[in-house]
C-alpha cells in the first residue's frame, strides 16, 4: 500500500499549522481545527438562540434577547429564563460531556467502537437511578444517586480489569459483562415495579433533557468546568499513549497513571451527564468519529471540537424531538435514530479499519 495519495487532512496539514510562542509557553495551533471550532461554536449559539424562540408559545428573537438581558415582559422572562434556557443549556452541556467522554474512552481503549454506554458506566447510573425511583426517594437527589452508581460501576470495571495493567481489550470485555449484569438487575426492578414506576424508569432510561432546571445546569456547568480542562490537557498525553504502551513508556510517560486519570475524567464526564439526563445513546460513540473525520486525529483542539459537535447534536435532537414531531420524543430516541444510520454509513466508508 504505497499509494501516493495523502488524505485531504494530511495534504493540507502543513499550511494549516501556526506556531504560537510566548516565553516558556508554546503551542502549535491547527488553523483548520480552529476554524472548525469557531464555526461549530457559532452554529451552537445560533441553534440555541433559535431554540429559545421555539415552543408552544413562540417568541420572536427580539423578545428573547430582551428577556435575556432582563428587560422583557414577565411572561417572556419566565418562558425564556425558567423554562427554555435551562433545558437548552442542559442539552448543550450534556452533549459536550458525553461526546468528550466518548473521545476519551475510544482513545484509552484504542478502539473506535467503544463508548461509555457500552461498558457499563451508564448501566451503573441507570441501576442506581432505578433503585432510587422504585424506592420512592426524593427525586431531587436522583442525579446524585445516579452519579454514585456510575462511579461504582467504573470502580468495579477498573478493579476487575486490573491485572498489573489495564489492557484495552480486557476493559471492553469486563465492561460488557458488568453492563449485562447491571442491565439485568435494572430489568428485574423494571419488571417487578408498579407500572407507574415502570414508565418513569423507561422514560429515565431513554435519556431526556426534559424538565432540566437551573440546579441541574449548575451541577453540569461545575463538572464541565472542572473536568473539561483536565480532559484537554490529558488529550496531549493521549496522543502519545495511542502509540502503544511500550512506545509511550519509552518516551517517559507513566502509562498506567495517565490511563487512570483519563478513565476518571471520562467516567466523571459521562457519569454526571447521565445522572442528569439519563443514558442518552450514540452521542458518545458517534460524535468523536465525526470530529475525527472533519479534523483529523484526536488532539486537544479536536477534543474541543468534539465537545461542540456533541452540543449541537444533542440540542438539535432535543429540538427535533420536542418540536418537529407530532408526538414529543425524548432526545435519546432521536440521537439513536440519527446515529444508527450515520454509523452504518461510516461502516461502508471505512473498509476494514475497524
Amino acid at each position, binding site marked *: 500500500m504505497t499509494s501516493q495519495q495523502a488524505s485531504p487532512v494530511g495534504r493540507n496539514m502543513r499550511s494549516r499549522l501556526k506556531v504560537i510562542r510566548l516565553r516558556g509557553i508554546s503551542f502549535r495551533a491547527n488553523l483548520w481545527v480552529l476554524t472548525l471550532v469557531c464555526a461549530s461554536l457559532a452554529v451552537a449559539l445560533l441553534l440555541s438562540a433559535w431554540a429559545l424562540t421555539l415552543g408552544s408559545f413562540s417568541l420572536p428573537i427580539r423578545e428573547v434577547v430582551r428577556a435575556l438581558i432582563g428587560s422583557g415582559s414577565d411572561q417572556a422572562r419566565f418562558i425564556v429564563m425558567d423554562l427554555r434556557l435551562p433545558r437548552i443549556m442542559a442539552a448543550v452541556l450534556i452533549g459536550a460531556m458525553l461526546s468528550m467522554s466518548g473521545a476519551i474512552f475510544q482513545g484509552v481503549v484504542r478502539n473506535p*467502537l467503544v463508548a461509555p454506554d457500552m461498558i457499563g458506566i451508564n448501566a451503573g447510573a441507570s441501576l442506581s437511578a432505578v433503585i432510587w425511583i422504585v424506592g420512592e426517594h426524593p427525586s431531587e437527589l436522583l442525579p446524585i444517586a445516579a452519579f454514585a452508581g456510575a462511579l461504582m460501576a467504573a470502580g468495579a470495571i477498573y478493579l*476487575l*480489569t486490573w*491485572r498489573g495493567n489495564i*489492557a*484495552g*481489550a*480486557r476493559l471492553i*470485555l*469486563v465492561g*460488557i*459483562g*458488568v453492563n*449485562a*449484569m447491571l*442491565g*439485568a*438487575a435494572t*430489568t*428485574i426492578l*423494571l*419488571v*417487578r415495579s408498579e*407500572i407507574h414506576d*415502570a*414508565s418513569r424508569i*423507561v*422514560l429515565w*432510561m*431513554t435519556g431526556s433533557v426534559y424538565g432540566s432546571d437551573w440546579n441541574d445546569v449548575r451541577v453540569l456547568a461545575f463538572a464541565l468546568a472542572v473536568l473539561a480542562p483536565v480532559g484537554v490537557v490529558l488529550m496531549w498525553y493521549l496522543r502519545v499513549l495511542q502509540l502503544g504502551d511500550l512506545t509511550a513508556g519509552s518516551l517517559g510517560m507513566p502509562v498506567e497513571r495517565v490511563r487512570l486519570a483519563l478513565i476518571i475524567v471520562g467516567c466523571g464526564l459521562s457519569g454526571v451527564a447521565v445522572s442528569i439526563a439519563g443514558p442518552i*445513546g*450514540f452521542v458518545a460513540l458517534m460524535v468523536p468519529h465525526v470530529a475525527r473525520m472533519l479534523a483529523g486525529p484526536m488532539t486537544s483542539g479536536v477534543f474541543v471540537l468534539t465537545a461542540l459537535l456533541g452540543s449541537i447534536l444533542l440540542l438539535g435532537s432535543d429540538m427535533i424531538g420536542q418540536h418537529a414531531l407530532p*408526538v414529543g*420524543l*425524548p432526545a*435519546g*430516541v432521536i440521537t*439513536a*435514530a440519527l446515529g*444508527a*444510520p450515520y*454509523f*452504518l454509513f461510516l*461502516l*461502508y466508508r471505512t*473498509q*476494514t479499519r*475497524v
Partner: protein
Amino acid sequence: MIEHVSAQPSSIRWRSAGLFGTALLLWAVALLSLRVGSIDISTADAWNALFHYSADSYEQTVVRYFRLPRTVIGLGVGAALAVAGAAMQATTRNPLAGPSILGVNSGAAFGVVMAVYYWQITHPIHFVWFAFAGGLAASALVFVLGSAGPGGVSPVKLALAGAIVSSLLSAWLTALLLLDQQTLDIVRFWLAGSLAGRDLSVFFAVLPFIALGVAGLLLLSHQLNVLSLGDDTARALGMRTGAVRALVAALTVITVGASVAAAGPIGFVGLAVPHMVRSLVGPDYRWILPYCVFAGPVLLLSADIIGRVIARPAEVQVGIVTAFIGAPFLIGLARRRRVADL
C-alpha cells in the same frame, strides 16, 4: 458423526462418557424443573402427570399445564441457543460472538412490541410468529448491511452491523413503549426473557425450526471444524466458505429466531455454554455441538429453577438469572485469557 479420528480410543471413551454424563445431568435437571417451584411436587406425581395423568390431582395439573411446557421449552431453547452460539463462534472465529450478535434478539423484541402496539395482541402465545418474523427480518437486514459495501462480508462488519441494528431497534422500541404505557405493561415481562406462561402449543410451534436448525448445525460440525482454521485455510482445503457460512448463518438465525420467539431474549447461554464445553472437550466441533445440545438446557433450566425458588412465591425471569450467571463467567474469561487472544 460423533466419531473421532484420534488413534487414542481412551479419549473417545472419555468424551463419550462425558456426553452421557451431561445427558444424565440434563435428565436430573429436567426432573427437578418439573418438581420445584411455588409448590414442590413429588417425583411420583411428576411421573404420573406425564404418563398416568389424572385431572383430579392438583399437583399433576400443575405439572402438566405449567411445569411441563416450560421444561420442554427450556430444553429446546437451551439446546438451540448453545448450539447456535457455538456455530457463531466457529464461523466468526470470535470468542465473543453469540447468537444475539446478528440482531435476532432485538428484532424479535421489536416484532413483539409492534404486534402489541398495532394489532393489540396481548397473549405471549401469539407473540411467537411476530418475534420470529422480527428476528428473521432484523438478521436479514444485518446480513445485507454487513455484506454490502466494499470488501464484501466480514465477521467484524457483521458484528458491527448487528450491534448497530440492535441499538437502532431498541431505540425505536423504547419510543413505542414511551408512547404507550399499556404496551409496556404487556411486553415488559416478555422482554426480560422467560419460560413461564407458555403452553405446549408454543413449544410445538417452534419445535420444527429448532429441530431443523440444531440438526443442520450438527451435520455441519465437520465444516465448522475446518472453518475455524480461518477462511483462507478452509478455502485452501477446498471448502466453499461463502456457501457454508451462509448456510450456517441461515440455520443459526432460524434456530435463534425460534427460541427467542418461544422464550424472549435470553442472553449469555449462547455465549457461555460453548466456552464451558470447549474447556471440557477441546476445540473439536463434532464434540462441542453434541455437548451443547445437553449442556445448554442444563444451564437454562437450572437458571429457570433458581429464578423460581429465589424469590418464592414470585419468580425472577430466566433471562435475568442467566445474565447474572453468565456475566461473571465472561469477566472471568476476560481476566484469564491473554489479551492478545481476545
